[in-house]
C-alpha cells in the first residue's frame, strides 16, 4: 500500500455508519476504497448529488459522461441516489447537515485553522467549495501528507497562507500520525507502524500534546 492509500485507509476508519460525507480532490478521493464492509456511507458531491457509488468507465452498461462526481470522474448512483442543483447542494452543506468533509490542506495549525487555496504571488487555485464545506460540516478531517514536497512541515503553529476557515479541523491524518484538534491544542492520537513519537514531533512545527496512550494506525 502506498503512502496516499495508507492515509486514505486511516481516514476511512474515522467515518461512522450512516454518515453523509464529502471528499475533496486527491488523497480523500481514495477513501471509498477503504470503507469496512457493512458500514454504509453516503457520498455528497458539491456539484449537486448524494449517493454516488464509485467510478464508472465507458465499458460499464450505466456509463454516462454527464454523471460526474465533484472531481469530474464519471460515476454511478447507488439505489436512492439523488441530484439537486448547486444552490440546494450548498444549502445542505451550509445548514449543518453534512456529517463529514475529508479534504487536503497546504497548512493546518494549532487552532484547527487551515489553508488550501492560494500561495500569494505563486499559485491561485481558488477555494471552490472548500470554504463552505469546512464551515458547514459537522466534522472536518484533513487527509494529507505530513510535510510538503520539499520537506517543510504542514502542521504549523499558525497558518501563514491565506486561510480557508478558522478553528474547524477535528482530525489530521497523515502517513505518520493521526492528530486530533482539541480545545487545548493538537493531541497525538496515533502513529504509523514503525514510526516513533520523536519522528512525528520532529516533522511537526506545531506543539504536540503527547498523551500517555498513543494508538497505532491501521496498516
Amino acid at each position, binding site marked *: 500500500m502506498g503512502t496516499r492509500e495508507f492515509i486514505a485507509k486511516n481516514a476511512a476508519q474515522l467515518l461512522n455508519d450512516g454518515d453523509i460525507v464529502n471528499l475533496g480532490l486527491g488523497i480523500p478521493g481514495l477513501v471509498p476504497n477503504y470503507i469496512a464492509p457493512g458500514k454504509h456511507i453516503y457520498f455528497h*458531491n*458539491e*456539484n*449537486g*448529488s448524494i449517493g454516488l457509488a464509485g467510478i464508472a468507465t465507458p465499458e460499464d452498461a450505466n456509463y*454516462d*459522461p*454527464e*454523471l*460526474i462526481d*465533484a472531481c*469530474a470522474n464519471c460515476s454511478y448512483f447507488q439505489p436512492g441516489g439523488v*441530484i*439537486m*442543483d*448547486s*444552490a440546494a*447542494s*450548498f444549502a445542505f*452543506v*451550509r445548514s449543518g447537515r453534512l456529517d463529514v468533509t475529508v479534504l487536503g490542506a497546504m497548512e493546518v495549525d494549532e487552532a484547527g*485553522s487551515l489553508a488550501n*487555496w492560494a500561495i500569494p*504571488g505563486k*499559485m*491561485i*487555485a*481558488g*477555494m*471552490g*467549495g*472548500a*470554504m*463552505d464545506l469546512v*464551515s*458547514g460540516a459537522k466534522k472536518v478531517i484533513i487527509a494529507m501528507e505530513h510535510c510538503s514536497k520539499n520537506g517543510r512541515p504542514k502542521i504549523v503553529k499558525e497558518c501563514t497562507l*491565506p*486561510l*480557508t*476557515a*478558522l478553528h474547524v479541523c477535528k482530525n489530521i491524518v497523515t502517513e505518520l500520525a493521526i492528530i486530533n484538534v482539541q480545545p487545548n491544542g493538537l493531541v497525538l492520537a496515533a502513529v504509523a507502524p514503525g514510526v516513533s513519537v520523536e519522528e512525528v514531533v520532529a516533522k511537526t512545527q506545531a506543539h504536540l500534546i503527547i498523551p500517555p496512550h498513543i494508538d497505532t494506525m491501521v496498516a
Partner: protein
Amino acid sequence: MEKVTSLNHICRLLESDRSYMIAGFAEVGTPYTLINCLLACGTRDITLIANDTGDATKPGVSQLIFEKRIKKAIVSHVGKNPETGRQVMNGELELELVPQGTLTERIRCGGAGIGGVYLKTGVGTPIADGKEIRTLDGADYLLELPLHAHIALLHAEKADRLGNLIFHMMARNYNPIMGTAADLVIVEANQIVEPGTLSPEEIMLPGAFVDYIVQAERR
C-alpha cells in the same frame, strides 16, 4: 412570443462589455454551442460569472480565457486553467474569487429579488475583507450581495417551445439558478419539443424565466 431562434439572431444579442453567467461544472452542463457563438461573433470585455474558468485541456469556458475575451471573472476555482492565474498576475484579468456556496447563494439572491444574504462562509479569511460582519444569534456572518447578469447562457437536455427546461444528470448544477438571474436568458437544448410533451412536474426551470432557445450542436 416565439422563443426558438437561430444562432445568427443570438449572435446579435451577445454584446461586448456585458456580464455573462455561464452554467456548468467541470464541463458538464456547459453551453458549448453558445460559447462557440461568443467566440465566433467576437464578443469581448466580458464579465464572467461561472463556477470556474474551465479546464485548459478541454474546450468550453477555458477558450474565452485563452482568447482574452474576459476582463473580469467572478468564479470559485481557477486551478484547472493556469492561464487564468497568469493573466491575473500580468494584470490582464481581474479576478474575484468567491466560495462556491457563496457564489450559488449570491446568484440565487440575484434571481429571487433578494437584496443580500448573511453567510458564515469565509469569516476570518481574506474573503471577509471589506464586507460587513454581522453577529446573529452569537455567530458571525458576512453580508454577501446578489449577483445578476445581463445575459445567462444555459445548456438543457430538453426544452419545449415555451422554454420549460429539463437538465440531464449532473448538468443541472448552475443551470436552474443562473436561469433566474439575468436580464436575458438564452438556452441551448439537445432536444426541442412541443409544449405538453414534458410533464409539468418534471420541469426543472419554468419557461417563464427563459427568453430564447437554440438547438445545441452535436458534440
